[in-house]
């Protein structure tokens, strides 16, 4: 399922198994408010892009999080390789959309 530049790695587990009849994986990007850019919020499975958008609405906007949805099949995402100099300093800036500070953590999470 992965090309060399895919955002997902190949592992021996996926290489040795026969190809499955499985719904493909989609990455979901949501514009939270007018004027903001789309942000990566997570992934889901869907048989095609129409259904992927519907599923994204149901899965990722349960709490009114979005005004616009993008989906792209995960295998179409090209990703930069980790630095040749070693694994130590891959800049997190290359995946801004993956940055956890995007999310607000409510105070009550800690409280209860």
């Amino acid at each position: 399922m992965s090309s060399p530049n895919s955002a997902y790695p190949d592992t021996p587990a996926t290489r040795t198994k026969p190809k499955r009849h499985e719904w493909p994986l989609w990455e979901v990007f949501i514009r939270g408010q007018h004027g903001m850019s789309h942000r990566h919020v997570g992934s889901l499975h869907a048989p095609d892009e129409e259904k992927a958008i519907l599923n994204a609405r149901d899965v990722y906007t349960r709490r009114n999080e979005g005004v616009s949805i993008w989906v792209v099949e995960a295998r179409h995402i090209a990703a930069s390789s980790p630095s040749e100099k070693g694994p130590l300093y891959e800049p997190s800036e290359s995946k801004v959309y993956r940055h956890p500070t995007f999310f607000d953590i409510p105070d009550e999470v800690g409280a209860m």
Partner: protein
Amino acid sequence: MTHTAAYFEFLCRMGDNTLVLGHRVSEWCGHAPVLEEDIALANTALDLIGQTQMWLGLAGEVEGKNRDADKLAMLRDVWDFRNCLLVEQPNGDFGQTMMRQFLFDVWHLAMLTELKNSSEQRVADIAAKAIKEVMYHVERSGETVIGLGDGTSESHARMQKALDLLWPYVGELFIPDAVDIAMAEAGIAPDLGKLRDTFDAQVGDVLAAATLTIPDGNFAHKGGRSGTQHSEHLGHLLTQMQWLQRAYPGATW
């Protein structure tokens, strides 16, 4: 029949439809074919339960007998329910559930579209809120009916079977009685017969794309909306839904 009695009946019809269908759809939670569908079905059920609270809440106010939405939902017996027969039919397989949903959704959207212009402001307000949810329901159930109808030979056969089974429950949605006529004359609700063309056009498009065939014949089961003759299924549904309230009268939860 007084105006108030007819108005109350009408509101119960709207609220009982969403109550019973919402209950049916909620039965899927944790058992759907794939996680994304499980989550989507729960969203539909949640929308319908929310709409029930609005319709039956208003019904209770109009009736003026100190019955709120919960009392109406939990403490009436079968003969007082005014939902159409279609929504009380069992879930069957996933295809049957989605076909039932689609047929109801298309009628529901046409109805709410008219109710947005109701002479009763509170009805118009509920319709305006519900219609946003129902537009999505139609889109989702329609896509699913198309996908499964035009999918594998097995999924096609199952969807055709579901359509054959459920089609005789469609007619009831469009047959006006004294309540409907009174509501139409008061400008509260539309002439039901007028919704049929919109329904037929939209259902026809989707079923064509789904490669499904509408069964011959105009036979329509009746008795749900009037409450005169529900199916046996409704009693079992109420047995579950109302159990706690019946077993422990007066308790607050």
